[in-house]
């Protein structure tokens, strides 16, 4: 989605009477990376696959933890400094699982979901961010 992400709406969606805790991760645009100053990030996405991958990750998380509610939202297009690019939230009966599942989802999202960010620096230059090297697919290479 290209609009600002609504953390309050995510929180409201994640409230569940069966749950004792929810964990939310909000990824924001950081101004400084070493000595370079970022004005904004721009995100590009292979949308149908990104949605499929997010669903696959949610299914995997649900198989591993007793998740009652979950949301994974990623903003596309331009995201200015301090605004949210990603919101991941998980509600579970007990808090440990909420933390673990939320961490799993954001860690996997950053390796598996086909979204790419481009840094726009204050000096006018731009640069595609090179993501983490994913594990090789079985049978590949």
């Amino acid at each position: 989605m290209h609009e600002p992400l609504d953390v309050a709406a995510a929180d409201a969606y994640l409230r569940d009477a069966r749950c004792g805790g929810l964990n939310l991760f909000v990824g924001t645009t950081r101004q400084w990376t070493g000595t370079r100053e970022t004005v904004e990030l721009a995100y590009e996405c292979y949308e149908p696959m990104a949605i499929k991958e997010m669903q696959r990750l949610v299914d995997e998380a649900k198989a591993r933890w007793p998740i009652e509610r979950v949301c994974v939202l990623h903003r596309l297009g331009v995201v200015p400094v301090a605004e949210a690019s990603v919101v991941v939230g998980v509600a579970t009966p007990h808090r440990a699982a909420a933390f673990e599942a939320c961490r799993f989802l954001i860690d996997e999202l950053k390796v598996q979901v086909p979204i790419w960010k481009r840094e726009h620096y204050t000096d006018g230059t731009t640069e595609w961010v090179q993501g983490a090297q994913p594990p090789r697919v079985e049978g590949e290479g």
Partner: protein
Amino acid sequence: MNESHPVVFTVLLFSILREKVGRAAVDVAVPAPATGSALLDALEAAHPAVAPYRPVIRLAVNQTYVPESVRLTEGDEVALITPVSGG
């Protein structure tokens, strides 16, 4: 479809690959039976800008990551995924 005839796939490109090649999608002819590796070889021959990224490209067919050894079928949606950087 005949083993001696090439099959044409439309390959989707994103982010740095899209910029280096200058297009969001390119058609690539691959001799049948087509595999992921053969498609990447043909793409690299036609668009040398792809070559430096070959070691880090993951192949997606019909929006699912697959090994390069995958057998391709006419009509498959093929995409090249360089290391992602969402979040």
